[in-house]
């Protein structure tokens, strides 16, 4: 680079400092860029490659897709069997639809619960706001796995909820919540609620109060002002929060695995079982690639809003 620059512009002798000014920024850009390309982006290419392989009893447990044969020819053996299998065995379609449905309704409930919370926070005084913010952020920092485990202590058959309800005579038999769909919903809502409240609070807090006052001065009832002003202006927060709950919830593994029953097959759990229990790496890769293709829409939506938000 150094020599090339000198040769191209011999009349303008470049000092080290000038070179630094011209190319120095690559010293900052390249390390994270290369690291993420190698360890985050390229892995997807490998998953794509191995999704075309077949299972084999060897280490690693799949056949070569690209191989150099003994007579120095490059051999490409693509097998579409894994993808055909995904389409024919209905477990995959069913679990994908189930994941989408579960994620959608959990996101909706998180939004219905989180919006009033964020709204109430944004209406409180600055000092209260700081304390409330800490209270909401703290669970976000504490272990996800441990919080799911803690929830189990509440909802299991001899957990706190059933003990309390029985004690007060509200029920005769303990409710069966663990290993049901309800437990999966409760788990997702409980775990992801802070992700919904924080972006909502961020947009609601910035809201210009004079607009609401103007609406009130012009004789609008508060619900009208809310629908016409607050709600539309808080849409970026609604979308950011919803995506932060919806997208990870589709791929959730820990919650359906620990709280759900055998029929709560979410796609993350199917992939995990395919990989760890059946040891079928090519099919697991195909599940991952197919899953990713189906996620492109929501992720692009999230990126679009996020990148736009960051550029402003």
């Amino acid at each position, binding site marked *: 680079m150094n020599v090339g620059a000198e040769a191209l512009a011999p009349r303008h002798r470049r000092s080290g400092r000038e070179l630094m000014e011209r190319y120095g920024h690559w010293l900052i850009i390249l390390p994270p860029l290369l690291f993420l390309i190698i360890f985050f982006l390229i892995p997807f290419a*490998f998953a794509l490659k191995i999704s075309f392989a077949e299972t084999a009893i060897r280490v690693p447990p799949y056949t070569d897709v690209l191989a150099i044969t003994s007579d120095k020819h490059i051999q490409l053996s693509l097998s579409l069997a894994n993808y055909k299998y995904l389409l024919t065995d209905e477990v995959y379609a069913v679990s994908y639809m189930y994941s989408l449905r579960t994620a959608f309704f959990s996101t909706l409930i998180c939004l219905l619960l*989180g919006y009033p919370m964020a709204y109430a926070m944004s209406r409180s005084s600055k000092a209260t706001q700081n304390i409330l913010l800490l209270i*909401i952020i*703290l669970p976000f*920092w504490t272990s996800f796995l*441990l919080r799911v485990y803690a929830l189990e202590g509440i909802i299991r058959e001899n957990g706190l909820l059933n*003990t309390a309800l029985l004690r007060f005579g509200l029920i005769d038999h303990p409710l069966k919540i663990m290993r049901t769909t309800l437990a999966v919903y409760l788990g997702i809502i409980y775990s992801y609620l*802070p992700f919904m*409240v924080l972006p909502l609070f961020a947009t609601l807090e910035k809201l210009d109060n004079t607009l609401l006052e103007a609406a009130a001065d012009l004789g609008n009832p508060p619900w009208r002002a809310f629908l016409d002003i607050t709600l539309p202006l808080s849409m970026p927060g609604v979308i950011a929060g919803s995506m932060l709950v919806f997208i990870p919830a589709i791929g959730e593994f820990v919650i359906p695995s*620990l709280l759900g029953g055998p029929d709560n097959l979410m796609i993350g759990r199917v992939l995990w079982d395919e990989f760890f229990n059946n040891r079928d790496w090519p099919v697991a890769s195909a599940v991952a690639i197919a899953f990713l293709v189906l996620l492109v829409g929501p992720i692009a939506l999230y990126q679009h809003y996020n990148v736009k938000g960051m550029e402003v």
Partner: protein
Amino acid sequence: MFERFSPLLFSILCFGIAVLYIPIVVLIGYSFNASELVNVWGGFSTAWYTELLHNRQILNAAALSLEVGVVASTGAVILGTLAAIALTRYRKFRGRLLLTGMVNAPLVMPEVVTGITQLLLFVSMLQFFGWPHRGFTTIVIAHIAFCTAYVTITVQSRLMSADRSLEEAAMDLGSGPVRAFCEITLPIIAPALAAGWLLSFTLSLDDLVISSFVSGPGASTLPMVIYSKVKLGLSPDVNALASIIICVVGGCVILAGYFMRRADRRRQLEIQMADR
């Protein structure tokens, strides 16, 4: 005008916070239960905590997790800060869009997908280069990759609000760009670096899915041990372990937040004094 809504809003807020906290409080309560049965209170006891100290499997896993956490979050802070500087300071460069995308993607990428793709990369690399062997190294690399994203976003927002004119003034007065950055901007963004490190550390300490995929035989992190214990059934010592982790992390976050706010307030005060 909002008074009319207040009681309803207030009760929803309280309900939400209760939902977030009751399970944790109950868990900590259970950890002091002498009885092995969860629904029977057998008196106050710290037996489960003493038992933890004799459990080699848990102690080894905790040591591995702490080691991974320190190395991975340090790496992530370095790479994430560089990425944040690149994205805020250089408006146009080749690969900017790619970097923005790769910085945001891990936040929404399902962990199972990231985990399996990274494992396949590591396995192929091992075949071709004989490195890295699955275990400590692969877990650290995988953790750096997703923690970098969180650090970048934390530092980026701080950098955007930092006043660049101070740094430019220092450069006009003859200090080099590196020195100007280290002496002017670095102290301003230092709280964000600390927050990013802490966030990466807790994320790394908590990660189950990605670690399970990329780890090899014999290298079990703490979440992996906890998961298998919980999956097998009730183990009251997990309550004690969970209480320790939650209290230590919670305490650290509160303390760090307090010190950062104080440092910030002092800086603001200094700026006000200087303006006068």
